[in-house]
């Protein structure tokens, strides 16, 4: 059961061999003589999306190895990522030990938190299969999961087709050619805009800036539809350096009205310190206060010193500096106020809302208080709920699909 890739093979293999049907078969056999049997259901399907990565699950599965090797125990890894451990005559304490090890792997996930009152444990459920009641409950749960898996298998087949469509991963061997194409391709028509909006309590809105960016998806369509740009984060970063140069090139040739509407662009730190940026600066001239330069937090971490120089020289010349790529989770691990940027862009995700954990919310509230609520921009806002969530925390600057629609409405003179 602990084979590599068992989670994925179970979905692609014929359904009769699925982990779920094996589990049902096993339960049926146990039913006639259930003495000593019990099942432990580990609800990994309830993890947050970013913790449900296949290699996480594989490693979690392996934590059960010691138990499986020396005992009468079987682990089923189900399609929805849940694990089921079926044991016979094993001490509960021994099982606890491995389960705790698996739980520790996800200690940052709300699912793994143990309620102090001891009533609820969302991570695992125990079933004593020798009790008729427990057996019936667990059997019906397993049957339900089996049905669910059948549907998931169909979806997985579609997903794997999509995965193949993503294409060949970015590699050093194809990078150089792509980079050449990127430097010579027509690009001006691929520049898109997204509005960052200040939402006032009365329902009024005001444009903070419009972010100008080149959609990687569109570039991929144009020069390399068979390549997966996002497979390797470092090589992707390498490509963005070229992309920066192209974007600055196009913007430098653009006639800026005087004064023009505030814009923002996302750049590598190395680009800010380059000649291409000097050229752009000459075009922007006196209007630098209308330009916001966004930099990625990864880039900041890779070289905080260069970031410091870039930030100081930008701010001295009147530009405003924004740190992009933050999310509420990362804010728990570092203090962005030390970066002395003008803005911090924090990505919204629906997990924030479902979370409902007071601790996390108060942590976010603290960060917002310490950086100043006028510095925070909530990005990737795609629903009205996200705006409400932000407003409740004192945030008033927003960006995202939902905001683009909102900006159109405001632009046409209507109130919200």
């Amino acid at each position, binding site marked *: 059961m602990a084979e*590599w890739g068992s989670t994925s093979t179970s979905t692609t293999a014929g359904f009769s061999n699925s982990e779920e049907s094996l589990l049902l078969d096993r339960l049926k056999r146990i039913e006639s003589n259930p003495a000593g049997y019990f099942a432990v259901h580990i609800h990994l399907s309830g993890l*947050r999306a970013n913790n449900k990565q296949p290699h996480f699950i594989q*490693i979690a599965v392996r934590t059960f190895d010691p138990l499986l090797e020396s005992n009468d125990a079987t682990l089923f890894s189900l399609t929805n990522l849940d694990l089921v451990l079926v044991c016979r005559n094993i001490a509960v304490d021994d099982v606890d030990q491995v389960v705790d090890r698996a739980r520790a792997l996800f200690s940052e996930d709300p699912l793994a938190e143990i309620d102090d009152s001891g009533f609820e444990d969302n991570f695992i459920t125990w079933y004593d299969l020798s009790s008729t009641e427990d057996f019936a409950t667990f059997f019906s749960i397993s049957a339900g999961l089996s049905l669910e898996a059948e549907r998931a298998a169909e979806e997985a087949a579609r997903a794997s087709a999509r995965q193949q469509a993503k294409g060949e991963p970015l590699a050093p061997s194809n990078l150089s050619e792509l980079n050449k194409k990127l430097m010579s391709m027509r690009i001006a028509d691929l520049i898109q805009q997204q509005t960052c909006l200040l939402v006032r309590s009365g329902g009024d809105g005001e444009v903070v800036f419009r972010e100008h960016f080149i959609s990687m998806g569109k570039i991929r369509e144009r020069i390399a539809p068979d390549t997966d740009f996002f497979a390797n984060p470092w090589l992707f970063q*390498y490509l963005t350096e070229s992309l920066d140069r192209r974007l600055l090139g196009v913007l430098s040739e653009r006639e800026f009205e005087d004064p023009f509407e505030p814009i923002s662009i996302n750049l590598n730190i190395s680009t800010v310190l*380059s000649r291409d940026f000097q050229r752009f600066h000459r075009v922007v001239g006196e209007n630098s206060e209308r330009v916001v330069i966004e930099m990625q*937090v990864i880039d900041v971490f890779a070289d905080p010193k260069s970031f410091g120089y870039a930030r100081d*020289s930008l701010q001295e010349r009147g530009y405003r500096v924004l740190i992009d790529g933050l999310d509420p989770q990362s804010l728990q691990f570092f203090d962005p106020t*030390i970066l002395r940027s003008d803005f911090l862009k924090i990505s919204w995700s629906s997990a924030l809302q479902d979370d409902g954990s007071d601790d996390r919310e108060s942590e976010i509230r603290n960060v917002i208080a310490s950086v100043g609520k006028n510095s925070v921009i909530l990005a990737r806002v795609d629903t009205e709920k996200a705006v409400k969530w932000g407003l409740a925390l004192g945030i008033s600057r927003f960006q995202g699909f939902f905001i683009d629609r909102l900006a159109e409405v405001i632009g046409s003179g209507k109130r919200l």
Partner: protein
Amino acid sequence: MALAVENQRNLPSQENLLLDYIHRLESHKQDRKVVHIHLSGLRPFNRRDQHIRTAAGNFDPLVSELHGQIFTLKNSDIIFVFKKEFLPETETIVQKIRFLFSDDPLVTDEGENRPSFATWYDADADFDTILGLVQNLAQAEQKRQSVVRARMDARAALKAKQEQGEPMNPDVLARLEAALVRADLSNLVRRQFICSVDSKMIPTQEFSELFISIKDLRETILPGVNVTANRWLFQHLTETLDRRMLSMLTKTDSISISGEISFNVNIATILSKEFQTFDDNISASRRGSMIIELQKEDLFINLASYLFAREFLQEKGYRVLLDGLSLEAIQMINLDRLGVDMCKLVWHPDLVDGGDAVHESLSRLVRQLDTRTVVMCRCDNREAVDFGRSVGITHYQGRYVENLIAEDGRRRELLRLKRRIERN
């Protein structure tokens, strides 16, 4: 970015003028006072040119009557040197400026462990302090300018190319990675010791780091190419090196891994099959003597992966070390929350130049980290260890430490000889 710098290149900076002025002040320092207003601590949006100009403008009446001299520094700080009898007027002006920024945390949070808004000096009594401060400011500005300029300059790029070779490009990276799969790298593996150092500078070996020497790799496989020129391509290369290192560590006959050891691994590698194979092949007891070094770049590219990997490693019994932290990084990151067992702070003379503020902040950090070990790495002279000791750091690594070990070895050898002679 270099535009303004170029324009100013031939003009003396305010920092240099101030230094010059303080030197001349020495002869008539008896009746002068100095106030240093720390506007550099303001939030960026309060630190715009017009704000600083407005603040400085308040001193105009005193300056035009020649009762004082004002310097507005690059970092927005204001230094005002004035005649003793104008202390009341100056105090009023500083109060006025404080009002200007009354909504900024610099003013609102003053006192609670924060540096104050203004520092007052008596030119006579505090002359050495003032001189030291001004020298630091001038040096910092000079360094800042040279670094910014070095980045801009085509000349600097050319110089780097001549000294370090052609910058790495994707094609070279592809060839290099292909070559690495076949090459025997065991002769490129180096070992450097991490030691605790006592007050007599006698080192005790705590553990050793195993690494593939990039310098030697360059010389043997890719002469004339600067493999570290592009940060992202280099990161990609390290993933290949990780896998080679792991396979060497698995085949213990290729390199010796005695004692407690540490080595660098990318998070992506930890979550890969190669690492699982490595882990399967070493005994549980051995894991306890291994320290996995992670790079800070790796952390925020996928925080969820980091958290998972750290739990996995610590669960298995490995210890986790966060490598390559600069002063800025160590101040930013919440190491406690990240749950690392150790971290490495990279030595840089800037740490000393940073003065009391840096010293205090680092001492506090080291104290707070308590049981989590801080290693000062890349110590190439005694100053590094002296500084580290003064902020409470106990572990050191680098060329200087290697020298200490060699010296200690010689000392012990001599001692043994001496004993033998005495016995005879």
